[in-house]
Every structure is written in structure tokens, then in C-alpha cells.
């Protein structure tokens, strides 16, 4: 009987504790629901978008990409560039400090740049990998307390934008840390400090200095989309990411939150694999013809896909470059199946007795991009409708799709989304910097493009390169290796309690979030 009483008591305690549930956040706190936890806070190891979204509030950077998509100085007061464009000298602002109060000097900035590049430490994050490869980083050195010099192996107009991704931290504190401490107990240079990290549950940041409109930021890890939606509607979180279109009506009609949509910078495409990886496969020979590739652009109803499957209107792509840096003379290719059929006839691929022009395989990932499986199936149907018999194959991303992509054995048609930026067209175009480059998944070898690429990167400014860039984008529009679809729309759920506008580049910038009065 005593046991029964104990059980009843425990039950009563549990049921009498509704006040213990997640309550609405206090006014000085903002709560963000993310789908994935951070892996590390070691600035040289951070690699995922969710991870860097949090780290951006802990670590400051020399430059930052503002809401309008422009690269602007943050820790830097003045910039000078050597005549050959291979050395950048930055004068830091006065009075900078790290979170522990240690003054932040040029030596710390040089250390922050050199540490990720140290091969003996074998870092595998975004900075030593993608950023330094693109930047052509060679070394960094302190000139004096306020001036730091960054040396590059090649001139590039991407330099400042790429440097905006390198997290700055203080040398003394990091030299004294073990790798585990660097991962778990960051000492940053930004507005917030890591107060606690319950792995898999939540990460709490506390404000240490301006800017920042909230004293506390809580990042709650909520992997399941419907649970994130429920937490938002219940008022327990203020912002949620990756809202699926089918949940948008529930959020909008809740009265407590609304969906904020932004046309992102991720470029959704069907890639034409023109390389040896699919040589001999059905359809591989036919898509070598630029006329066929151009014809297929007319076959797919992109606005229809957006409205029916993504629940919104999309910004159409005219090339691989994000607006406003794209070629203003180009307009999206309209949905015109008759024109597609006419062009395919002219290209020498008429329908046979069964109504088929040729067969081809279209591969796509499942669960990687917004409603990807349905979008891929719809594209397959549109292509089949104009006589290109399309076999759709949906694959798991991490274990199957990604390895095939890296070895360039996808397709011959494959669905892909690639991140882009708003601050420099050459960043978006650099996917095709060489015919055999790692990101040239399509193995596109058009010599006109690569000749122009050299001219574009040799220019001192983007403005100077603009005529060449526009010519390249026109070529890409007409004969390129992508079936141009749309810039992926991103959906966020935002509580009515706060004012916040999402950015195009998938960065969650809470510095522009405020409490509604």
C-alpha cells in the first residue's frame, strides 16, 4: 500500500507541475528553435550553417556582410591593399577586447588567421577548408598593435568577403587551451558569451557588450519540424527555421506567430553531367548539345512548381549569379512546352513511334532541400511530357548522393542546390573556375567561359569586370550546364512578440531582432 501511495504521490507531483513547462521567454530573452545542435565552438573547426549562426554571435570578424548583402568593416577601421593585390593591411579599431577582458590586438588577429591554417593541428572546419582555399590565404602577421597584414597567394576581389568568415579570438587564451576546451568553452570577441551548452538540448548565450538587443539568446535544438512549429505557436520560442510549406497555414492562423518568407541565395538547378562519369548512359550524348539543354529549359514549368509544391512565388534564376549581381538584360526562360518540342526537333531529336525522343535518368536527393522529392518528380514528368522519357531516381543524401556528386557520377541529370552570396558575382561564378574543378560537377568545359573567367578575376574591381561578367552570364543562360530553376525560398516562423526580418543568405542574424513595443 505504501508503494501505491508513493506512486500516486509521484503522479500527483508530475500532474501538478504545469507551471514548470517552458514558459514564454522574458522580455530580455530571445529563443530560437534550430533543427541541429552545434558540433563545436572551436573557430577553426566550425563547419555547418547552424553552428556558424550561433558562433557569429560569440566571435567578431574583421568584416561583416550586412543585411543588404554588402561587405562592411566590423573590427576594422581602415584597409589598405598592396599594388599587386596580394597583401591586405588592416588597422583595427581602438579599444577592442576579448570576452575575458584581454585587449584584442593585431597579434591576436594574425593568430586567429594562422591557427586554422596550421597543418599540424589538422583542422577540418570551414575556415581552413573552403574559406582559405577560395581566399588563397598564405599567412598573417602583426605589423604593430593595431595593424595586421594578411598575405594571399593570388589577387581576388573576393578577399574581404571571405575574410568576413574568419572568427577572431585572443591568442593568449587559446594558446592555453586544450582542443577540448577550445571546442566547449570558447572565449570570443563578439557581443555574446557562451553561458551554457546542454548538448542536444539548448545553448545559452549572455550578452557581454553591444551591439545586441537581448541580454540572453537561447538556441533550442528541436529536430522535428512539427515540434518546432508547436513550440512556436505555444509561444515558447520566438524564431524557428526550416518551416515546411504545409505548416505555414497553421502558423499564420495561430494568432501568436507568422511565417516570414525570403527568397534565399541557394541556387536550385538540374545539372547536366557532361563528363566521363556518365559516359555511355542513355541521354548523356544528347545533352552534350547546347541546343538540347536550352530546349529543356522551356519544358519545365518553374512558376508552377513553386506555387504548387513550395507554396510561394520564387525568384527565377537567369544564370548562376544571385541578384542584384546578375546580368540585368537576361530574363527567365518561360514555360513553353511547344517551343521545347520545336527546339528538340530542330536539334535532331524528333519523337519516335512511341512518342519518345530519347531517354535519360534524373537523380535527386530526398530530404535535403525544400520538398525536393516532389520537385524532382515533377521535373521528371515535365521532361517526359515533351518526349524526353525521364527515369526519376531519388537517393539518400549523405550515404549515396553526396559521394556520387563528389566523384561526378551523377545523372546524367541531377537536382542540386548550391549556396550563393549577394556581395560578389564572382563568388557565385567560381563554381566554374576551372574545367576540372571540384565544384564543376557538370564537367562543363566551354572554353569561352574559362577564357573570360581569367579576365574577370584579373580585374581590379567587380565594376571593371562587369562587361565580361555579363557576357559570361549570357553564355551560361543560353548554353550553360544548368537547367535554371529558382532561388530556394526559406521559411521562418516568427513570434508576434518580436520584430525580425530573415536574411537571404540563411544566416540568422539576431542583431536585427527587437522586442515589439
Amino acid at each position, binding site marked *: 500500500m505504501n508503494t501505491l501511495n508513493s*506512486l500516486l504521490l*509521484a503522479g500527483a*507531483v*508530475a*500532474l501538478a*507541475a*504545469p507551471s*514548470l*513547462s*517552458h514558459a514564454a521567454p522574458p522580455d530580455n530573452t530571445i529563443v530560437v528553435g534550430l533543427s*541541429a545542435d552545434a*558540433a*563545436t565552438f*572551436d573557430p577553426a*573547426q566550425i563547419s555547418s550553417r547552424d553552428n556558424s549562426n550561433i558562433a557569429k554571435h560569440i566571435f567578431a570578424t574583421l568584416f561583416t556582410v550586412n543585411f543588404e548583402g554588402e561587405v562592411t568593416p566590423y573590427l576594422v577601421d581602415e584597409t589598405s591593399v598592396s599594388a599587386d593585390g596580394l597583401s591586405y593591411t588592416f588597422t583595427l579599431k581602438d579599444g577592442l577586447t576579448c570576452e575575458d577582458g584581454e585587449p584584442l590586438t593585431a597579434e591576436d588577429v594574425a593568430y586567429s588567421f594562422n591557427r586554422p591554417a596550421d597543418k599540424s593541428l*589538422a583542422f*577540418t572546419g*570551414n575556415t581552413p*577548408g*573552403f574559406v582559405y*582555399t*577560395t581566399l588563397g590565404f598564405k599567412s598573417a602577421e602583426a605589423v604593430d598593435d593595431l595593424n595586421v597584414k594578411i598575405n594571399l597567394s593570388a589577387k581576388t576581389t573576393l578577399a574581404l568577403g571571405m575574410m568576413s568568415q574568419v572568427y577572431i579570438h585572443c591568442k593568449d587564451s587559446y594558446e592555453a587551451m586544450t*582542443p*577540448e576546451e577550445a*571546442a566547449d568553452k570558447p572565449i570570443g570577441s563578439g557581443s555574446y558569451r557562451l553561458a551554457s551548452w*546542454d*548538448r*542536444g*538540448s539548448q545553448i545559452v548565450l549572455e550578452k557581454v557588450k553591444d551591439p545586441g538587443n537581448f541580454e540572453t539568446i537561447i538556441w*533550442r*535544438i*528541436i*529536430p*522535428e519540424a*512539427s*515540434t518546432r512549429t*508547436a*513550440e512556436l*505557436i*505555444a509561444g*515558447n520560442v520566438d524564431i524557428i527555421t526550416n518551416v515546411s510549406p504545409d505548416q505555414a497555414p497553421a502558423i499564420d492562423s495561430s494568432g501568436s506567430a507568422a511565417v516570414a518568407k525570403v527568397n534565399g541565395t541557394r541556387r536550385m538547378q538540374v545539372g547536366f553531367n557532361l563528363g566521363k562519369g556518365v559516359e555511355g548512359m542513355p541521354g548523356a550524348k544528347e545533352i552534350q548539345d547546347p541546343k538540347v539543354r536550352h530546349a529543356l529549359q522551356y519544358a519545365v514549368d518553374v512558376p508552377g512548381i513553386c506555387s504548387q509544391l513550395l507554396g510561394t512565388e520564387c525568384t527565377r534564376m537567369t544564370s548562376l549569379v544571385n541578384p542584384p549581381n546578375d546580368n540585368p538584360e537576361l530574363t527567365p526562360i518561360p514555360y513553353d512546352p511547344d517551343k521545347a518540342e520545336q527546339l528538340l526537333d530542330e536539334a535532331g531529336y524528333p519523337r519516335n513511334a512511341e512518342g519518345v525522343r530519347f531517354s535519360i535518368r534524373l537523380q535527386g536527393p530526398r530530404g535535403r532541400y525544400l520538398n525536393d522529392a516532389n520537385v524532382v518528380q515533377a521535373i521528371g514528368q515535365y521532361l517526359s511530357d515533351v518526349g524526353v522519357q525521364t527515369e526519376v531516381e531519388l537517393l539518400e*543524401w*549523405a*550515404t*549515396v548522393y*553526396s*559521394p556520387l556528386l*563528389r566523384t561526378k557520377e551523377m545523372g546524367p541529370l541531377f537536382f542540386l542546390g548550391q549556396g550563393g552570396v549577394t556581395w560578389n558575382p564572382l563568388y557565385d561564378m567560381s563554381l566554374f573556375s576551372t574545367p576540372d*574543378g*571540384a*565544384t564543376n560537377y557538370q564537367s562543363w568545359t566551354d572554353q569561352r567561359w574559362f577564357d573570360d573567367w581569367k579576365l574577370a578575376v584579373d580585374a581590379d574591381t567587380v565594376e571593371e569586370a562587369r562587361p565580361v561578367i555579363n557576357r559570361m552570364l549570357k553564355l551560361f543562360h543560353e548554353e550553360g550546364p544548368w537547367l535554371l530553376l529558382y532561388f530556394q525560398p526559406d521559411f521562418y516562423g516568427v513570434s508576434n512578440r518580436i520584430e525580425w526580418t530573415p536574411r537571404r543568405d540563411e544566416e540568422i542574424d539576431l542583431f536585427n531582432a527587437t522586442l515589439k513595443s
Partner: protein
Amino acid sequence: MWTFIIRRLLQSAIVIIGVTLITFTALQMSGDPTYLYVSERATDEEIQRTREALGFDKPLPEQYLTFLGNLAQGDFGNSLSYKRPALDAVLEALPATLELTLFAMFLAIVVAIPLGVVASLNRGSAVDGSIMTVGMLGQSIPSFWLGIMMIMFFGLQMRILPISGHVPFIMPLLSGDWAQAFRNLPQALYYLIMPGFAVAFYSISRNARLVRSSMLEVLGQDFVRTARAKGISERAVVIRHALRNAWLPVVTMIGLEFGFLIGGVVVVEMVFSWPGIGRLVFNAINQRDIPVVQAAVVILALVFIALNLIVDLVYAKIDPRVKL
């Protein structure tokens, strides 16, 4: 009994080697994991350098033997995505999963047995029919769907239970902070109700049916008739005589139950944002984080083996016919 335990431990070592071999082979069959750990723009040299640094360039048997050798020293290698020892990541997530699984097992026993007894004592009645209908539903409803429905109803509409999250109890207990653990207990239980029930619902249903049929069989036996003939109260007949014999199959199920519940927690942990091993393994598989998957599978296999051993020992204790 000691001979039995030693024999079982030796068998367990073989099972563990089998588990590691199967896990290792299955994950390696899905391709070269190096590409997950280099940037999109990595050159061939960088890819090769990373492959060598992570040991993926070595022949598979060598990679496996290295793994086994390290395993013997408790070293599962570093997590490729968390950049820290894989065992640490798994052991950190284990308490949350144990909380959920043990709570679900608790529900699967304390709810199922009374339901099964009541159904058997009211065979053919509306009460029996209702319990069996619920039991059938419980075995038909997927746990993730049940979880989402519970969130919608109890979390969002009625707002009497938390939608997601976790308050630790075992972790502070293990770290010696008993005061904190017991301060957390009411909240920990509160947060456990929905995910625990979502995990346990299938087992409750199955166990209730099992107890019912077992009880019906026992209630018809001679010794129960004799007990009734001796004038023992019906309550004593049911609890002391019939139920004591009827729950032997249930005890057998408990050992197997753990493995089943562990399978169920993967989706439930995702739905309720529960920071346990299920979610960890799910993410690790997606990222092909081989060390974490191997560490998790081996640790869970060890727990499963230990639990089954305990069940066997308990079984021998409560059933004098069983000799070890």
C-alpha cells in the same frame, strides 16, 4: 550460477565482436566517408590528405582490426562530426535514453499488468472488449504519430504538458550531485510523461494482452480451483496464486523489451527533442559518423546483454523450475 554467468559473459564477447563487424561492414559499404569531412572545393590533394589523416586509406580489415584493438582499450576513436571522443558523446547521451527507456519499461509493466488482469477477470465483458480494443490500437499506431498527436493535444491545445525538451535526472545522479538530481526529479518526470508514454504504448498493449491470456490459462488450472475450494478470498487467489504464475512470460518479455524500446526511442527522441542515443545515432548515420555509430551500438549491445543476464537470474529466482 557462477558457471552460468561466466558462460554468458563469454557468449557476450562473441556477440559484441559480431555486432562490431556487422556495423563496421554496413557503414563502409555505403562509400568513402572522406568526402563528408572536406570542403566542397577541396582539391584532390586535400581529399587524400584528409583520407590519410582519418585512416580511411587503409584496407578495411586493417581499419577493423585497429578499431577492435582500440575498442579493447575503451577507445572508439574521435567523432568525425563532433571532433571529440565518440565514447564521450555516446556516454553523455546514454543517461537521457536510459531515463526514457526505463520510464517506458516501468509504464509497460505497471500499466499493462493491471489492465491484463482486469481484462481476464472480466472476460467477454465490455471492460475486456475496451481494454483489448485499446490494446489493438496500441499495437497499430506508430509511436511518432502518437507523439505528434500528444504534442498537439496535451502540449498545444490543453497546454498541460511540455511540448519538448528534457530535464536530466540520471546525469546529475551519476556525477554525484544527488541534491540537484532530486531537485530535478519532479520536472524530469513531468517532461517524461509524453515521450515515455509514446515509447511505451505499444509495449503496454502487447503486455496487457499477454497478461490477459496468461491469466486466463492460469485461472483455469487445478491449483487455482483448489485455492478457491479452500475458501481463500478471490483477491488472494488472483494476486498470490494466479498472477504470480501468470507474469512469468511477462518477465521473459522484459529482457527483450529493452531492445524493442531502444528501437522505438529513435523516432520519439526526434519528435520530443530528447537528447538521447537514438537521436545521436540518427544524426551520426546521416553524417556517416562511423565512430559514434559503432560506439553507440556496442554500448547498447552491452546494456542489452547485461539486462538479459539480469532477467535470466531473476527468472531463476522467481520460478523454482528453472535451474541455471
